[in-house]
Every structure is written in structure tokens, then in C-alpha cells.
């Protein structure tokens, strides 16, 4: 039986056809993946199915009956549930409270908490998704929070579950757990729609895969008849070369050096425990490590956000002790952040205004106190063309761009600043294949131009493909240095987990 069918669905936004006559059907009990680049129309399509948008044209069938879904309430009534990318949970609430909120068991007019806890425990046992019903949600790891979100959806009686990029926020272990959960739900007869741009994951979990590109359905393939390369080709519309060419660039002068750097994290705990390294012009130094092993603190100290407890930093052989972010940038530091929304861009600002932030005090963008917005607009227009930032109107707000285009905007800004040292902190996080390829290309161009680059990444393939030297971080120390030709993903993986490290030597 078809649990869900979408026939000729289109969605028109002003000046943008986000979904163009899309048709597919999902069998009951199937895991159906929808892949596509950022901005391909996946989320729009899901929002139509879930009643957040109304389609401009087309029809939707649930259990082979035509339905009109005008609101999320309608979707819930039709036994659909969405597990959002950003969880809709209240951190201060207990797990139980979060699961029952909006549909609480009552005793008279009062909330019956004991019954709610019992209900949650029963539910969690029945679907074997273990959670502590009385824990405070905000204290739980992200993977468990997602479980709470899934339980919430199940409690409302969802038969069709939509997962919108559920792995974006998860560690590899949590992702593995999630897949176990999804299989279990499948065994229970639930139908799952899995939205993603990570091909490896899609190949692991999905039964069938639909590929979207620029709002159009490129095709639906069976998992067993396809492979990652074919999917990537369908997504991007051409052959994707994720092979990274090796560039031999003469190594130049030391651009950045730090010695015995100790940094505390925001909770006052020493998270960086004496780190020394240097980065030279024309080389990419990769920092590999599991998240939370001191990388954030290292970056914060390097960009002047936090003061090291001890140790020294030098940029272009000048001491950078106690300097401000502005001074570091003036000295030639550029910074690509993984946190586009919070640290990279001012989301309500236009593309134009974001494009020059940090350079706005320089000519020609301002003279004295006065901004020259005409020059700013000219510059932004140029960058939008050069970096192919879509949709391409410099008066769009940064927040309205897709993740890949936001990253292009950040690259455009940071690489046009006068700089000789670039910090790239997880520069491809959350990006699709096309945008990732673009970022790699830009980093290699930078290297060719003789810039010094520090690449911090959780993706080992990225580290191995781009770096000239690799530093491995574990528990606030650099526990190893190697080069890509002398190591493997497995060997790096073990080092990152601290396997085989004599702690006494380190401290």
C-alpha cells in the first residue's frame, strides 16, 4: 500500500520555482530518502507535505486517499510527524514534559505529571527507545534529545515520519544509533522520509532514493542499483571530482606560530593544555580531532575572543599577546567559521552589507566617517558574480540564503580581506557536494597564492586530502604530527581517540 503519494506538486515563490512538478510515492514501511544540494527544494517539499506551505499546484495522497493539508494540525491528524533539524524542545523541561507538551494528560484541570511519566515510560519501552523520562532535556546529549523529539512525534500517533537532515547535528556514534532506531521503526511498520545531502548515510539506510536538483526531480533509484558517484552526479548534474589534486607549492616564511598555549573554556576549565605549532606560507596544516578536544578554545584564542592563560602567539613574527580581534585582522588574519549563523554573518543584514564587514573602515567603502554604499554595492555585485552566490540579489538578507551560499558569501568576504594567514574552521560543515568542492578549490587557490592555512576539521577525508601536515588533537594536547602520505584514516582515527598515547610523556 502506498502510505504517501505526491503528484505533480509545484511550489512557486516570488521569482523562484522551488518545486517543479514533483511526483513520487512511498510504500508503507519503507525508508525513502530525498537527497539534493542545499537549496534544491528538499525542505520546501517537506514543508508542503507537513502543511507548513500550501502547494501552488498538485495533489497529495495519504493512504491512497486524496488529502488537502492546510496546516501542521492537518498533517498531524493524518498521522504524520516531523523530526526537525533544529529541535523544537524546551531545554528547561523534563523529557516527559517535552514529549507530552500540547497534549498533556490531565486530572481535572491539572496536569497529571505522574501519568505523563508513566505514559512516556511505556511508550519508550514499546518502541525500545531508551530515555530517562525525568531528566532535564537541556542536560542531555544531542543524540538523546533527538530521541525525545522522535518519541514526541510517535506519541501523537505518527505513522509517517519525516526526518529533516537528522544527522547534521550528530556525532558518528549517535548517527549509528539513530539508524538503529530508524530500522526499528521500520520494523514496526512506520514509513520514513529521510532528507539528507550526505550520500554515504543515504546509501546506508534508505530503500529508495529520490534526487532533487534545482527544484526538479532528477530520478528515483533503488539503493541496490546505485552508488555514491551516481547519486552525486545526479545531484550536481555533472561528474564531481572529490579527488583533491596535490599541489606542490614552495613553503614560505612562518606566518603563525604559537608556543605552549594554555586556554580555558567558557566554564573555566583548562581545555587547551599547552599547544605549540607553526604554519608557514603555502602550506595547509590540518588539525584533526574529535569535537570538543580543544579545537574551539584554540580558535577562540587565535581570533582574540579569549585570552590564553599562558603561552605566546605570533602572527608574521609579531607578538600577538593581548591584542584585539581588530588588530589580528589588520595584521593579516582571515577566519572562516563553522558557525555561519552566529559567528559568520549578520543574518538580517543584506548580502551587500555582510560582504564588507571588517573592511568597512577601509577605502573605498568609507571615507572618514562616511560610508560609500555605492562602492559597497559595486563590490558586492562583483563578489556575487565571482563566487556565484545565489539567488544573486545583493539586497537579499544573508539569512534568506541557503547554507552553501552563505558559506560562499563568507569566503568572498574573508578571502578579499588583505591577509596572509587563514583559519578555516570546519569550512564545509553542513555543505553539499557542490559547495564542498567549491570550498576545496578556494583553499587550494589560497595555498597556491602562498597563504598560510590552518584547517580544523572533523572530516578525516578532508584533512587527508588537503593538508600538507596533520596535527592530531586529543584532550587539549597535540598528540601527534604526521603527513597524509604516512598515515591512514584508521591510524588517525585511533590517535584522535587517544589510543596508544602515553599520557605521562604529554604532561
Amino acid at each position: 500500500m502506498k502510505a504517501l503519494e505526491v503528484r505533480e506538486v509545484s511550489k512557486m515563490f516570488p521569482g523562484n520555482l522551488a518545486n517543479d512538478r514533483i511526483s513520487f510515492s512511498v510504500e508503507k514501511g519503507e525508508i525513502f530518502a530525498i537527497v539534493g544540494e542545499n537549496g534544491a527544494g528538499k525542505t520546501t517539499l517537506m514543508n508542503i507535505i507537513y502543511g507548513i506551505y500550501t502547494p501552488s499546484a498538485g495533489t497529495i495522497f495519504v493512504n491512497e486517499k486524496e488529502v488537502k493539508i492546510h496546516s501542521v494540525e492537518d498533517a498531524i491528524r493524518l498521522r504524520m510527524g516531523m523530526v526537525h533539524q533544529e529541535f523544537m524542545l524546551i531545554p528547561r523541561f523534563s523529557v516527559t514534559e517535552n514529549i507530552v507538551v500540547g497534549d498533556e494528560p490531565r486530572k481535572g484541570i491539572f496536569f497529571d505529571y505522574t501519568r505523563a511519566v508513566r505514559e512516556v515510560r511505556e511508550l519508550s519501552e514499546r518502541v525500545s527507545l531508551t530515555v530517562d523520562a525525568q531528566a532535564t532535556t537541556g542536560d542531555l546529549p544531542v543524540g538523546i534529545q533527538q530521541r525525545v523529539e522522535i518519541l514526541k512525534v510517535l506519541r501523537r500517533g505518527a505513522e509517517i515520519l519525516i526526518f529533516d537532515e537528522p544527522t547534521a547535528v550528530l556525532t558518528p556514534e549517535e548517527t549509528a544509533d539513530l539508524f538503529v532506531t530508524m530500522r526499528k521503526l521500520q520494523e514496526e511498520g512506520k514509513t520514513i522520509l529521510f532528507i539528507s545531502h550526505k550520500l554515504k548515510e543515504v546509501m546506508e539506510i534508505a530503500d529508495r532514493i529520490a534526487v532533487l536538483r534545482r527544484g526538479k526531480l532528477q530520478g528515483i533509484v533503488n539503493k541496490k542499483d546505485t552508488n555514491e558517484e551516481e547519486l552525486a552526479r545526479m545531484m550536481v548534474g555533472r561528474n564531481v571530482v572529490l579527488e583533491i589534486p596535490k599541489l606542490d607549492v614552495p613553503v614560505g616564511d612562518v606566518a603563525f606560530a604559537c608556543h605552549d598555549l594554555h586556554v580555558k573554556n567558557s566554564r573555566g576549565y583548562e581545555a587547551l593544555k599547552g599547544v605549540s605549532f607553526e604554519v608557514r606560507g603555502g602550506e595547509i596544516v590540518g588539525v584533526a580531532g574529535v569535537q570538543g578536544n580543544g579545537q574551539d578554545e584554540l580558535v577562540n584564542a587565535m581570533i582574540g575572543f579569549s585570552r590564553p592563560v599562558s603561552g605566546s602567539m605570533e602572527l608574521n613574527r609579531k607578538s600577538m599577546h593581548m591584542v584585539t580581534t581588530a588588530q589580528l585582522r589588520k595584521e593579516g588574519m582571515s577566519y572562516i567559521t563553522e558557525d555561519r549563523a552566529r559567528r559568520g554573518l549578520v543574518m538580517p543584514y543584506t548580502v551587500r552589507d555582510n560582504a564588507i564587514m571588517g573592511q568597512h573602515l577601509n577605502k573605498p567603502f568609507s571615507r572618514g566617517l562616511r560610508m560609500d554604499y555605492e562602492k559597497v554595492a559595486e563590490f558586492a555585485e562583483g563578489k556575487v558574480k565571482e563566487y556565484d552566490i545565489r539567488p544573486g540579489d545583493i539586497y537579499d538578507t544573508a539569512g534568506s540564503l541557503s547554507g552553501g551560499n552563505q558559506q560562499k558569501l563568507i569566503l568572498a568576504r574573508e578571502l578579499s580581506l588583505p591577509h596572509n594567514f587563514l583559519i578555516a574552521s570546519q569550512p564545509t560543515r553542513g555543505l553539499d557536494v557542490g559547495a564542498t568542492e567549491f570550498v576545496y578549490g578556494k583553499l587550494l587557490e589560497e595555498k597556491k597564492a602562498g597563504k598560510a592555512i590552518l584547517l580544523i576539521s572533523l572530516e578525516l577525508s578532508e584533512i587527508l586530502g588537503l593538508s600538507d601536515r596533520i596535527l592530531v588533537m586529543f584532550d587539549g594536547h597535540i598528540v601527534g604530527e604526521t603527513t597524509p602520505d604516512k598515515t591512514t584514516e584508521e591510524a588517525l582515527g585511533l590517535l584522535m581517540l587517544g589510543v596508544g598515547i602515553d599520557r605521562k610523556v604529554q604532561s
Partner: protein
Amino acid sequence: MNESNFTNKFLKVFGIENHRHNRRDPLNILVPLVSIALALILGMIVIAASGRNPFRAYALLFGDSGLIPGGSSWPREFAELLIKSAMYIATGLSIALAFKGGLFNIGAEGQFWVGAIVATFFGYWTPVAHTFGAMYAALGSLGWIAQLLHGAVCIIMGMLAGGAWGAVAGYLYVKRGVNIVIGTIMLNWIAWFLITSWLVTGPMTPPSQTFTSGTFYIADTAKLFRIMMPTRLNTSILLVLIAAYATWFLLYKTTIGYEIRAIGYTANIGMDAPRAQGININRRVVQVMFFSGALAALGGTFFILGMQYQFPNTATMGYGWTGITVALIGQAEPIGVILAGLFIGAMRTGATSMQVANIPKTFSDIIEGMAVGFIAMQVAVRYYLVKIIHHRRARTTPPADQEATA
């Protein structure tokens, strides 16, 4: 040079050309207008419920507000409207500017009074008053220059003091983490009692007078020019329009404004983007609070130099609070603040004659309050406006995409 070319050159001098920072959204104008309209309609219901005739009340309220020309009392009402509005626009600009920087400067009230007392002091203080008095006598027919200078000294000193008062809150916020709302509220009361319970009844009272008479009167040279005899309309309305223009210029034409707005857009959600680009947020916050305080203080100098000519013992608080209303209705945009300030000024002017006809003045406060309420609910107002507009469009023209599928 043809005319449009001249206009362009003129606009360019003032930086008004090509003013496009965002997509223009007609809703930005519609929301405050609809809010006011809804408040007026609800106001009628409230007045009717109290057993009074709402049409008569509104006829008095708007008939005597100075907005509608005609009648023998109109010039006086018009003058009152502009005098009041000038002060409300000043405090409204103060709060609007702070809003743009992501700061809720509740302290416009205190900054207003600091500006007022300092302007009073420089208005009567013998060394200053005598200097300008002597200059006035010496200049003869050019005496207006002395008046201009003395007025300017009072206004500038008042604005510097008010700015400093605002900057204190900014400094405490930046260096000590004192919440800006709490800090400015505290400073309001400190300023108010320091002035009314000590300065006005003590050191600044003429020795021969009792403590109920207020401070010394300012010298004639310090008074603002009257521009529409025989009413007491003075230059304050012109000065505040210049201040509004300066505020707009600061926000949309300068590097400081660029940074202020970037900070404001990210301040309340704990985002770091401006800081990561090397913008010194702390310095800008203190500056914004200084500018904001100076604007509120400008209103305070109008109160003294244009109306009271001394700091009276009977002054009552409210100009800064009204500024919040004005900034909210004006959507924190300088041009909006001017219009909102005129609207509130008109309501307050008309309310007086409404009261004469035995309809309590508080009805106009109720209407103001409800207008702010609707502004505060602007997400909902916007939502329904969009629905209504779409509904209209759908009825008049069938959507293009449905035609395509048919």
C-alpha cells in the same frame, strides 16, 4: 542645469539619494497605521462604554489638536502641538537610536531632565549670562548673534551632560554587566531626585525665594527664538528636525551607523558575527548610549529654553516614557519618529480641550496605550494584514499558477 539634475544634486548633498538598505516592505508603514486605527476604534468603544459620546470626544480631541487648520484658536493649538511634539520627537529619537543598537534605553527620562537642569544652569549662571548679555548690548542690531550663541551653549552643554548620563549606563553594562534596562531605570531616579529634591529646591533656588518657586530664571539671551507671534512657538521644532536628520545620517550613512545596526541585529540573540569581524562592540555600545542620552537631553533643553525659562518646582515626569511610545509607533526609524511624535503631540494638545468638555484626558492615554499594544503585537497584526491582502488578491485576480495547471 535642469531641474531634476538640481534635485539630484540637492539630495546627494544630504545623502538621501539611493537610500536602499533593504527591500521596501509596505507593511512597515501599514503596521503602525493599522495599529493606530485599531486603537482609535477601540477607544471609541471604551468612551461609549463610559456613557459618553465618542464622536463628540473625537471631534474635540482632533478638532483642537492643532492638526486641522481653521478657527481663531488654531494658531495657538498648532504652536502647542509643535512645542510638545519637539520634545517627544527628541526622546523618541533617543530611544529609537538605542533600539537600533539593540539597547533598550529606558533612561531617556533621566537624560531629559539632566539636559534640562544643565541648560537651566548655563542659562542663568552669572559668568555666562553676563558675557552674552554684554555681547548682546555691544552688538546692537546684531544682538541675535549673542542669543544664538547663548542658546547654543545651553543646548550643547545640556546634550553633553545627558549624553554622559546615558554613557554611564552604557559603561556599567559593558564593564560590569549591569543590564541596560535596570541601569537606566536606576539612573532615572537618581537624576530625578538629585535634581528635584536637591538642586531645584536648594543650590539653584534664588536666596530670597522659597523652595517652592523653582530655580533662577534664565537670561533672555538664552531663550529660544519665537517664530510665530503671538504664540509661543519656538525654534525647537526646527532643531529637532535637524536632530532627526542627523540621527538618520548617523545610522544609514556613517561607519558608526553601519556597526551600530550590525550590533543591534545580533545583540539580543548572543551572536558574535560583528565581533568576529573586529568590530569593537563595547566602544560602540557606550557611544550609542551617549548619542541616545544627548538626544533625550535635547528635549530637556527645549523644555527649559523654549517653555519654562527656569526649572520649575512643578515639573512632572513623562517625556522620556512618552519617547518609548513614540519610538515604538515610529518603528525606530527617524522619519517614523517624527510622524509618531506629531501624532502624540496632537493627542496631548487635543486632550486638554476634551477635558474642558468634561471628558477625562486619560482617554487619550488609553488610546496611546492601545496603539502601543497593537505595535507590540505587530507579528499578529502583520500576519492578519498579509492574510487580508492575499485574500483580496486571490479574489480579484486568479493566481497565475492555477491557471497554468487548468
